[in-house]
């Protein structure tokens, strides 16, 4: 072990100077390579882009999962310590068991991706290695640390489960998550550098430090977006697992356990999902700030139709998550009294979805423009611009939170004397907040474009105020509340299918977002610096991309089925009758 640590330290010592020192001044810096079409290897008719795309996306799916699950595993473990409820601890361990099986597959696919890139895009990889120098060694080192801490965290679970030892265990979990997130941030630096290069001259010659290249304009927005998306994604996948187990189990105790697991996973997925649109807006705002042309390519140019699919996917996710929460009202005896509100929430969610799905700027032919009577539809056109979409998404988020709040309250009856007043404050918070969101949306129509984005800030703040304000009031109001029994397991089978919608839609959505992120570079490996002259340097059509994304999603689903089966296999014991035979 000590030799291993010494080797890691030596690696760190070798690679660290590169992170802070600028490129050597001894020689004039080389411009980025500009390979011609003939410089790209053609091997056995393999589509290099399809292979790299598939490997990268599969690696990302798996990596997102194995990074996210330890995050909410430690959060769940912490909940177990705080509440003293052993179910949390058991569930956190079960989360990790699934991760263990997926971890080696993540590394395997990552290796495959690296090999694909080295073989088919050697010039690009050579250039990126020059730009990021020692950071790539640090990445390898972190990967080693991630493996060690992951194994330690999982295998020491029972040994460090009780008493003060639990804190040692959680500390290992903290290290694991810190290393995991750092790994993701490092990888994000490479892909965001390809979109918004920094620390280099216009011809690609390296002039700055690795840190300058890392801290490129899109790095932090991408970090935040992926961090939140990973949490939502991990929750959705585990929720799918819990739903399957719920359907497959006959034992009521086990069924109740997996119902609870599904509920918690859905809660985590929604928790990660609620702030995601805001992170997405920040990312897109930074893309516009970096290159208006790149932003318009995404939102109003050749990729604009893609956001219609994105809206459909997010709409599916919202509806499924809400449907699951509404179904959950039947777990408690008081749940029915909240059921009458469901139809109104459904109207808002569907209405918001329809606004979100309304396009604004699209590429139209002359005859389409004439048929439409202009470049935008006279009635629906105004719903396509950002003020309408911001209003829609904020209302959808507020009402999704309301669905969750209804379930939470359905099992608790407040006993404090000021409960009625507190409820009035909550109602006022919702009413005033919703009015403010709609008002700010209307203001967005009458203000110049540059202030339109600014108008979305009070909307976001209002949404967060409603959510945080309601949570604070509920926490105090429901302290010592009369608890109603929650009948875990009292759920319809149909509701569990809503939990399958989430991982399928999330996975497809992530694939779609990967397609658009890469397409934004158009025919550049490194935007404006290194041209992609490969035979497949064009943006594929939406249909072709849809086929590829569906194929990768199918492959990922197959891998996850294998992973879940593997984790169950570990629990299966040979029957006594078989042993004696």
């Amino acid at each position, binding site marked *: 072990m000590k030799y291993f640590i010494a080797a890691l330290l030596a690696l760190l010592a070798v690679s660290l100077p590169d992170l802070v020192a600028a490129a050597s001044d001894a020689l004039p810096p080389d411009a980025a390579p500009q390979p011609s079409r003939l410089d790209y290897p053609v091997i056995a008719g393999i589509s290099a882009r399809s292979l790299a795309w598939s490997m990268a996306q599969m690696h990302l799916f798996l990596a997102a999962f194995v990074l996210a699950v330890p995050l909410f595993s430690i959060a769940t473990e912490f909940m177990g310590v705080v509440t003293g409820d052993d179910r949390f601890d058991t569930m956190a361990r079960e989360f990790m068991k699934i991760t263990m099986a997926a971890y080696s597959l993540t590394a395997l696919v990552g290796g495959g991706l690296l090999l694909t890139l080295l073989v088919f895009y050697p010039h690009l990889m050579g250039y990126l290695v020059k730009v990021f120098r020692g950071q790539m060694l640090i990445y390898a080192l972190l990967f080693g640390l991630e493996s060690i801490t992951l194994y330690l965290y999982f295998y020491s679970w029972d040994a460090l489960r009780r008493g003060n030892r639990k804190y040692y265990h959680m500390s290992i979990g903290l290290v694991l998550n810190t290393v995991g997130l750092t790994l993701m941030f490092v990888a994000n630096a490479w892909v965001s550098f390809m979109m918004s290069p920094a620390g280099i001259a216009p011809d690609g010659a390296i002039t700055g430090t690795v840190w300058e290249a890392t801290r490129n304009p899109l790095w932090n927005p991408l970090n935040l977006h992926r961090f939140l998306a990973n949490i939502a994604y991990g929750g959705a996948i585990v929720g799918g697992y819990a739903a399957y187990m719920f359907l497959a189990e006959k034992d009521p105790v086990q069924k109740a356990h997996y119902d609870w697991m599904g509920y918690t996973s859905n809660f985590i997925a929604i928790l990660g999902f609620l702030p995601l649109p805001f992170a997405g807006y920040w990312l897109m705002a930074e893309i516009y*700030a970096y290159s*208006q*042309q790149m932003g318009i390519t995404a939102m109003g140019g050749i990729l604009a139709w893609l956001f219609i699919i994105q809206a*459909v996917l997010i709409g599916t996710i919202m509806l499924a998550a809400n449907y699951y929460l509404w179904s959950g009202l039947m777990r408690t005896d008081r749940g029915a009294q909240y059921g009458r509100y469901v139809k109104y929430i459904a109207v808002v969610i569907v209405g918001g979805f329809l606004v979100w799905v309304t396009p604004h700027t699209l590429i139209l*032919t*002359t005859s389409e423009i004439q048929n439409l009577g202009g470049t935008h539809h006279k009635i629906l056109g105004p719903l396509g611009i950002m003020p309408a979409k911001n209003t829609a998404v904020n209302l959808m988020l507020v009402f999704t939170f309301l669905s969750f709040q209804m379930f939470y309250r359905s099992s608790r009856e407040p006993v404090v004397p000021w409960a009625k007043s507190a409820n009035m404050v909550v109602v006022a918070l919702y009413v005033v907040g919703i009015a403010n969101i709609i008002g700010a949306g209307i203001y967005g129509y009458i203000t110049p474009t540059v202030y339109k984005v600014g108008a979305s800030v009070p909307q976001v703040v209002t949404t967060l105020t409603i959510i945080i304000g309601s949570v604070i009031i509920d926490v105090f109001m429901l302290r010592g509340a009369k608890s109603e029994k929650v009948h875990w397991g009292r759920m319809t089978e149909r509701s569990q299918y809503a939990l399958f919608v989430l991982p399928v839609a999330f996975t497809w959505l992530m694939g779609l977002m990967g397609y658009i992120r890469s397409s934004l570079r158009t025919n550049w490996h490194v*935007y404006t610096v290194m041209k992609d002259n490969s035979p497949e340097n064009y943006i594929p059509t939406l249909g072709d991309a849809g086929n590829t*994304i*569906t194929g990768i999603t199918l492959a990922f689903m197959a891998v996850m089925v294998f992973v879940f089966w593997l984790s169950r296999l570990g629990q299966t014991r040979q029957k006594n009758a078989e042993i004696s035979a």
Partner: protein
Amino acid sequence: MTFLRVIGFSLALLGFYALYAHTLPQVEPDLSEPEILATEGLDMPGMIALGEGLFTGKGTCTLCHNGMGRAPDTLAMDLAVTFPERLLDANYSGVAAGGDGAQAVESYIRESMLEPSAFVVPGFGKKGTNDAVSPMPVVDAPPIELAPVEINAVIAFLQDRAGLTPTVALPSAADTPEADAPAADEGLVEAPVTDAQSALDKFSCAACHDLEGSGADLGPALGGISMRMSRAGLMEAILDPNAEIATGFDAGLMPDTFGEDMHASELLLIVDYLMALPAPRPSDTPEDEGPASDAIDVIDAYGCAGCHDLEDSGADLGPALNGISARMDREQLITAITNPNATIADGFEADMMPDTFGDDISDAEMILLLDYLMKLPE
């Protein structure tokens, strides 16, 4: 069984997403090699046409310079008023500050393309810079990479729109942008022909298009093409023939290599010749002796369906003719034919329809035409 149900459900959902992606409009990738137009010999109208194409095409100017408010809507502005205002703007201290005339405007436009932050129109600066930094990319740098001759063409186009005589230099052979990777066998360049007929012969236009009685029908007839498209549109139709396909014809038939094969002077010769080509008259066809004998012949003779949607011809440069009696009476229709710019229908542009029909169409033909059009159903 549960496993199969879950898998089936997930597959159905995946199938829906994949299918949905196919139902949306598919933006086909441009797989053609970068078009290198040999610009030597290009005259000023050609430069203006090239500039217009660059403004809406490779230059990607209209991505931001449109009515969306991200950048001044250049094409909607009265540039004859805007440019002098900019030159005299107290906040402008660039190379053309205080200047006057076409030369100063050229300097101003060139500077705004190469140093966009030299003057930022109030309200259009990068967020947080107080209009000190322009979000516009430098046009000769990646990703736009306009060549010097292309920048000149855009300037010529904008000067022309401002009612000024373009002052940019006309291109020479040395100005032709270089291809990224010239083919190995691309050594000798064939010398350009010097007259329109030779150019039309060289590129075998009449083999596919009906041209002065050639009778070919693989592509639209070329007679009267100036009534169906603008000069710039014709240039684009030659250089990028699949961008827009005329109703009733197939895509992919016309070679898309003329941009590389044609000298600019040859392109100009062909375009000038075709734009001057009159519409085939009844007398042009041997079997017709005298004026058209029925309404359909009149419509064919004057190419009405080339611009107006008539019985699903699909043309959309002018208003549809079906149901026209519901929109105007007989007298108004006569005025619309003989003096087309007197009133322009909503959504259409002036000066698109020739104003010579009053002289060209005989009284008998006019009666046939009016009788037919006024009875056309919706």
